[in-house]
């Protein structure tokens, strides 16, 4: 292997991230038991997005990868958001 990868990530970082993920899981369950109407789904999606960011940036090493990879992720997410957004542009006005 001629290219140098980033240095191996210390185990404790993964453990800290895991504890955060478990905490967020407990939070999302707790919040979901309170009737907040339409706010419930947005709270759930918000917490899920936060958990995803932790998994993507730490477990999947994206924080330590070059900018190119991060750009690709952004393009993928924008694509998905466009699919969902444009679908609702149609569906909400029928």
């Amino acid at each position, binding site marked *: 292997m001629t290219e140098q990868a980033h240095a191996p*990530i210390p185990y404790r970082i993964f453990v800290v*991230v*895991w504890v955060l993920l478990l905490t967020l*899981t407990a939070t999302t369950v707790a919040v979901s038991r309170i*009737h907040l109407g339409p706010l419930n789904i947005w709270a759930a999606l918000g917490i*899920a997005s936060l958990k995803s960011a932790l*998994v*993507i940036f730490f477990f999947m090493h994206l924080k330590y990868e070059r900018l190119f990879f991060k750009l690709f992720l952004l393009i993928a997410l924008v694509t*998905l958001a466009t699919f969902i957004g444009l679908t609702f542009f149609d569906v909400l006005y029928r």
Partner: protein
Amino acid sequence: MSDAGHSATHKDYTGAKLGMWLFLFTEVILFGGLFVLYAVYLDRYPSEFGSAAQELNLWLGTANTVILLTGSLLVAVSVSAIRRGSRGLAQWMLWGAVFTGAFFLFNKYLEWSKEIGHGIYPNSPVLLRKEHGEVIFFGLYYITLGLHGLHVLVGSVLLAVMAIWVRTGRINREDFVTLENSGLYWHLVDLVWIFIFPLYYLLL
């Protein structure tokens, strides 16, 4: 395949990883399609989705969330371990992750046998007697969680192969991109579940 000194074939570490990320993006679009359907029908049938969700087992769903998150921890540690030359630790972590996958699928079996036992499965007479929105909820439930479960199975088999390759030395501290890529696949499976869990199990 000889690993003495220089590798005979040229390996492209960045290219291999980029290829995997691109594949993962296609998976995001695949599951994304199912989530688009969910979003539209949730908007159309909010109360039916809520009442259908009560049928699901919140405890098993939460347990499965914890299980997959732990699997991801173990896989992440295994990559750092092999990079430090800790072959033993890497294998333990990988087999541990395989076990989390098996545990997840076992829980899924418990949930689905109970739900199917209650007569709730696609096109069942019991299901068809329910509100239209509930029928749609369960259709999406079985397709999405089924497809996800298939990915858990594939991921678990992949990680088991990785564990064996660590033991044989095919994956080592100089050449570990295959393990990293398998780890990326596993983390994607975890990511999809991170969204499935609140959307299907936590509705009121």
